[in-house]
């Protein structure tokens, strides 16, 4: 893009249209400023709380389990639970990012409206914001994985694959919930989302114990939730027990949540913002 284009954009008459990269980049550029501003709070919320889980479950509960039973199926409990905690903490961050901040931009600060008064369109705003969330998930998950690795939470180098899997799991929550937020008038629905959906998911998605410990009737519930698929995939790659067809199935389900969520989200956001 030459300087001429930029000059023409400051002048009168028809202006050179923006490339997709420029439109999305402008939104992510803004999000980057916002994230930089809230970095300190982010470190606490996205890093310390999973660390507590790591200490309590992995090391506290883990040493008890390992002493009694020799781990889960021969795997030390810490290494069993860490990949799952990685996926779970990404889920929490992904859900948070798709609720309150999105509601803020839609309704409280109306910053989406200010973006849509410019050449940007709904899709640019959505791609830019979800892309920024994805970046944030990558960063938070990386930091957490590094700490978990120092605690001895990973058995193999294959555990590095936990990063993309956790981020995909996060997006499987972010995208549909982003759309859900677009349909909400206020934050009341988020309480239900976190208490009645996120909390049971965290507990019953094979995170802290394999789902075959659950009553038979509860197991299918885990199958339809993204977190179980994320947890199973992360555990496979971290423990080096990859079962290719299953891994493909799990990631396929996660992708489906992202794709179907995307269509619904774009529809809901357009309906909300273009009135």
């Amino acid at each position: 893009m030459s300087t001429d284009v930029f000059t023409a954009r400051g002048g009168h008459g028809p202006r050179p249209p923006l490339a997709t990269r420029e439109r999305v980049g402008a939104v992510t550029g803004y999000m980057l400023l916002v994230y930089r501003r809230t970095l300190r709070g982010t470190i606490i919320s996205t890093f310390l709380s999973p660390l507590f889980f790591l200490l309590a479950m992995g090391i506290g509960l883990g040493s008890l389990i390992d002493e009694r039973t020799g781990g889960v199926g021969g795997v030390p409990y810490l290494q069993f639970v860490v990949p799952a905690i990685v996926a779970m903490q990404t889920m929490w961050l992904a859900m948070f990012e798709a609720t309150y901040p999105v509601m803020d931009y839609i309704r409280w600060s109306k910053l989406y409206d200010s973006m849509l008064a410019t050449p940007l369109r709904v899709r640019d705003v959505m791609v830019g914001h979800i892309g920024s969330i994805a970046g944030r998930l990558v960063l938070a998950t990386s930091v957490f994985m590094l700490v978990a690795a120092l605690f001895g939470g990973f058995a193999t180098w294959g555990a590095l694959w936990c990063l993309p899997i956790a981020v995909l799991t996060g997006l499987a929550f972010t995208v549909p919930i982003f759309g859900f937020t677009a349909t909400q008038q206020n934050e009341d629905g988020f309480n239900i989302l976190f208490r009645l959906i996120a909390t049971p998911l965290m507990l019953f998605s094979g995170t802290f114990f394999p789902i075959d410990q659950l009553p038979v009737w509860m197991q299918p519930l885990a199958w339809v939730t993204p977190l179980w698929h994320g947890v199973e995939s992360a555990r496979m790659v971290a423990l080096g027990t990859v079962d290719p067809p299953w891994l493909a199935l799990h990631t396929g389900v996660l992708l489906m949540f992202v794709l179907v969520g995307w269509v619904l989200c774009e529809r809901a956001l357009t309906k909300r913002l273009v009135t």
Partner: protein
Amino acid sequence: MSVTRPTVCGMANDVLLSASGLTKRFGDFTAVDGVGFAVRKGESFGFLGPNGAGKSSTMRMIGAVSPVTAGELRIFGQDPATNGPQIRARLGVVPQHDQLDQELTVEENMWVYGRYFGLSRAQVRERAVELLEFAQLTERAKDRVEPLSGGMKRRLTIARALISTPEMLLLDEPTTGLDPQARHLLWDRLFRLKRQGVTLILTTHYMDEAEQLCDRLVVMDHGRIVAEGSPRALIRQHSTREVLELRFDVDDHAEYGAKLAGIGDRVEVLPDRLLVYTEDGDTAAAEVHDRGVQPLSSLVRRSTLEDVFLHLTGRTLVD
């Protein structure tokens, strides 16, 4: 994205904005009911009306963010339904609520917004310096937005809207909620823009604002245009030169309405006062005195757009 290069730069008689039969419905509710207007380059054009008259809905359609329900709307000769981004690239928008990021600094808000128009980083920084100077916010450039006064935030919103050098500036109630001093400062800035040839489109429910800033305006009520013209012409057409305002020590001013019949051109009864429309306020005041009527207070003033609005709709602008 289509690369449209419309051949409308040198449009006949420089009409930048035109509408006919423009309608906006939300479900069963008709917010804008078949309005028509045209604005030329360099003009400053106002929509005057009370809350709920359809001004903001009209503005959002002009801003190419709200789809038109029916009728025709052309901005820079283009249809917002098909050329929204191209139109918005040339507009500056000052929304009713500032829509600033309160957590970011003043200059960060400017930079971010300029990037939405595809301006380079260097360009937004350079423009931000000039515009913050213009908005008298240079000293606050590195401060967070949140603690700024309402007037400062409003000036920042205007500066932000100017970052892409828009050909037309849309202002939705630019001074609502500001104290008199902040309003005058803002008017001064807008007046400078007008002198520089920027086309201003604004909505307001303040008659003094419309009188100060608008070359031409339409009066809106219930989604319709009830009158159109320059402020002066509207006053001449729909009101008298002067108004005598009378207040009495009564609960219901209507009882004095009859006693004053025949004085001036006509008498309007408001809940808190009587308005006598007349060419000569002092003579009318003398007549009132001659009839032995003793008001608590009486005031002679010139007619304003408020009187025009009252005459056209039977209601006051600001309740």
